[in-house]
């Protein structure tokens, strides 16, 4: 069972790296589990694998990298530490009014809504880019989260 899961995860990483997501059935169940439980602290939050985070990092570069960097404001604000931060709070980035006044903290669920359709979530934002597939959003969010996490908060691996 465990080996099977590992194989599935590798499979997912390979799919992600080629940026083709033809089959929703290939999402590892571990990711889904994390999605559901990570708001609470009672379960070790390491169900998102390092492979998925790495896949999220590759996807981030390809899809978000036209506009975002981790440490520099570009077309969009810099992203290191965005997970857990209040929306519109990078001091030296000039946000749209919509995002400046957007009273939301970036978590799994708010990031998921944002990436699915930013202009519907925060009307009048200047980010129009959508990440259509749920499994893509999941790994990108896991990647952003990993940049905010300390070693301890990710649980022992």
């Amino acid at each position, binding site marked *: 069972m465990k080996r099977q899961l590992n194989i599935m995860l590798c499979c997912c990483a390979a799919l992600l790296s080629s940026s083709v997501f033809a089959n929703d059935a290939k999402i590892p169940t571990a990711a889904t589990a994390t999605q559901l439980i990570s708001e609470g602290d009672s379960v070790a939050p390491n169900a998102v694998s390092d492979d998925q985070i790495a896949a999220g990092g590759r996807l981030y570069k390809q899809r978000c990298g036209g506009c975002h960097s981790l440490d520099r404001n570009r077309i969009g604000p810099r992203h290191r530490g965005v997970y857990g931060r209040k929306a519109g709070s990078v001091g030296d980035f000039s946000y749209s009014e919509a995002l400046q006044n957007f009273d939301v903290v970036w978590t799994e669920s708010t990031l998921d809504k944002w990436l699915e359709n930013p202009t519907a979530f925060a009307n009048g934002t200047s980010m129009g*880019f959508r990440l259509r597939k749920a499994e893509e959003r999941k790994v990108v969010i896991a990647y952003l989260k990993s940049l905010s996490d300390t070693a301890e908060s990710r649980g022992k691996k």
Partner: protein
Amino acid sequence: MPDITRNPFSRRHLLTGAGRTLSLAAVSLIVGSKMKTASAADVSQDVKILNAAISLEHEGIAAYQIAATSGLLQPAVVEIGVAFQGHHKGHRDLLVKAVETLGGKPSAEKSLDEYAKDLNAASLKNQTDVLRLALGLERGAANAYLGLIPSLGPDFHQVAAQMAGDEAFHAAILANALGEPIPKDALIFG
């Protein structure tokens, strides 16, 4: 279509049907007319997104400027870069015109120094580094355009797709110059 019949300056006079079916060409015919209809919110949303695209093009133009003057490129490669930069200028000009036509203010460019910092140009040591940077930006730009199409009004879908096409063309040439293998699977971008 609420209100539209009550407003003599509404876009009903400019539109054949309901909704925002104005083509880019049609938009450019009506420069100066204020669009105060039910879809003003849609128009200002388009302006926001198009302005982000202008910022993307500003950065691309600057990146090729930095590359061309870096002294790291062979003359033939500089020539290609200048051609690609010309495409990005073409995109910028179209987008600026669209934003102005919609009554918005096009986003301004930053200084070349700022772009150099943002893109970590100081770390570029040779031609391969420069090509890699350019490839990353072009790939990102192709994907960016494809991802924002559904958020844009239909008037701008085709032009955004055309721009994605140009960026994908650039990315293919750059990837080839870097000796990257041809992707096996379909749907390479987006």
